[in-house]
């Protein structure tokens, strides 16, 4: 069993009601090869909230998370994280967002420790060596620290990717199917992470199907359906009606 | 081939090519605009 207290190092975050919404989007849309993966989302998630993104495959959950992580740029509409524009202030957004994607983003030829050390160097983590060891312990991989990631199972890779997130100082955490591929111990690690972040006042957006498991941590839910918000519930989450696409396009053009 | 032959070959390709490109461009432009209009009507 992993340690019970996981170390997360948030930036110094003010009182939730003093902070801008963690996520605020206006008619945010993204097309791939001409077809909309996200057709238009106007969503607000307040600071220090944990919100689940629900919806069937292809509903646009991953696309929304990638847009918020600045991994991709919006085709239309705009969005903000902590009041920072996804497009104009992308560099600042990156400092505040931690994103766990389907792909783990690990280098096969490096060991677990080397992967985390590299991430720490990229993230500018202070006291990097100690933090890397701590993160390895937190995700219960210290025994495999010197093994190459190439030989890791999917679950171990996922844990290591979670360990990498622990090295940052996010104010918003985006998790795409965090429980996928994990065994019971691994899932327990995710649970602990969620409560640690929640306590630290970090906002969390989770795309997942494991609603029962998530229930104790959630402030609200957002249901996506074919690229638009079908329903929201809970506290600190709101969805505005999306305007006609033509108007969005003109707005987008004006912004450009 | 005489010098005049090369001169004719050069002018034929350059001036002819210019003309050919212009005509092709007209056709491409017309068909693009027609399609645009058709899209508008369809909506």
């Amino acid at each position, binding site marked *: 069993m992993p340690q019970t207290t996981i170390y997360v190092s948030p930036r110094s975050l003010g009182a939730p009601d003093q902070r801008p919404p963690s996520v605020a989007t206006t008619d945010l849309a993204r097309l791939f090869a001409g077809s909309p993966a996200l057709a238009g989302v106007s969503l607000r998630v307040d600071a220090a909230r944990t919100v689940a993104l629900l919806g069937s495959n292809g509903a646009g959950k991953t696309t929304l998370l990638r847009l918020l992580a600045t991994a991709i740029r919006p085709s239309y509409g705009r969005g903000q994280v902590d009041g920072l524009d996804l497009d104009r202030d992308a560099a600042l957004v990156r400092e505040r967002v931690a994103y766990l994607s389907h792909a783990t983003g690990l280098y096969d030829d490096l060991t677990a420790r080397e992967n985390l050390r590299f991430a720490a160097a990229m993230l500018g983590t202070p006291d990097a060596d100690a933090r890397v060891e701590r993160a390895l312990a937190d995700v219960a991989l210290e025994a495999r620290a010197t093994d190459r990631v190439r030989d890791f199972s999917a679950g171990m890779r996922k844990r290591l990717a979670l360990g990498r997130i622990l090295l940052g100082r996010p104010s918003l955490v985006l998790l795409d199917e965090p429980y996928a591929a994990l065994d019971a111990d691994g899932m327990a690690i995710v649970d602990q992470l969620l409560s640690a972040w929640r306590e630290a006042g970090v906002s969390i957006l989770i795309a997942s199907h494991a609603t029962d498991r998530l229930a104790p941590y959630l402030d609200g839910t957002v249901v996506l359906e074919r690229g638009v918000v079908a329903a929201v519930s809970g506290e600190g989450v709101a969805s505005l009606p*999306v305007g006609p*696409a*033509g108007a969005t396009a003109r707005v987008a053009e004006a912004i450009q | 081939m005489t010098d005049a032959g090369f001169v004719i070959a050069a002018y034929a*390709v350059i001036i002819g090519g*210019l003309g050919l490109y212009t005509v092709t461009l007209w056709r491409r432009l017309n068909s693009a605009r027609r399609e645009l209009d058709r899209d508008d009507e369809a909506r």
Partner: protein
Amino acid sequence: MKTRILGFAALAAVAAMTAIALFVVPADLNQGDAQRIMYPHVASAWLGYLSFGVTAISGILWLWKRDLRFDAIAVSGAEIGVMFTAFAIWGGMMWGRPIWGVFWQWEDPRLTTTALLLALYVGYLLFRRLTDDPQRRATRAAIVGIVAAVDIPIVHFSVEWWRGLHQTATIASPDRVLNPAAPMIFVGTLLGMLGAFTLAWGYLMIRRYQLARAELAREEAVRIGRLEDARRGVARSEAAR
């Protein structure tokens, strides 16, 4: 309407200058009739460079202003530039054979430079087709166009030195028409042809730009339509519930 007038002016100018270059101007004393090829050759080469310059500058403007109209200018410049560059190479070859006895004279820096230019921008045009998102295509094309333009002077100097540092046999220089000692009528004809071709270039650039705009508008309309459908689709299915 104005564009149409420009088109007629270009047509008349090109026709007149072609007739003058072929039938009115006397043949060069040394180079004979082959010299007549120089007029459209030099004009085409100049317009090729101009077009690629336009493409690079529009690329920079797109990255700066994020207005897709600049991308439309960029693609117009590249396509028309490729055409004029190909003309320049063809003219150079047709000139080289009677003067130098070979179609391709490696000692001539211009021909080699121009051939590399053609390769650079054919690559640019092919590359453009591989991205279907207009904004991403514009961004990627812009940087490829900028780097290609940055490469042009280096290519030019390197090929120039390549010949210059070797000091091989002196060869007939293609730009003797621009030589100050050349008779005024040659210079006049060259400038006239340059003007006529530049008019044609302006006309073609405008039309090609209009085509690019129409294509962009159509692409955009399709995308907006799909977006609209997706937004309405869910609204409908909710109403049905």
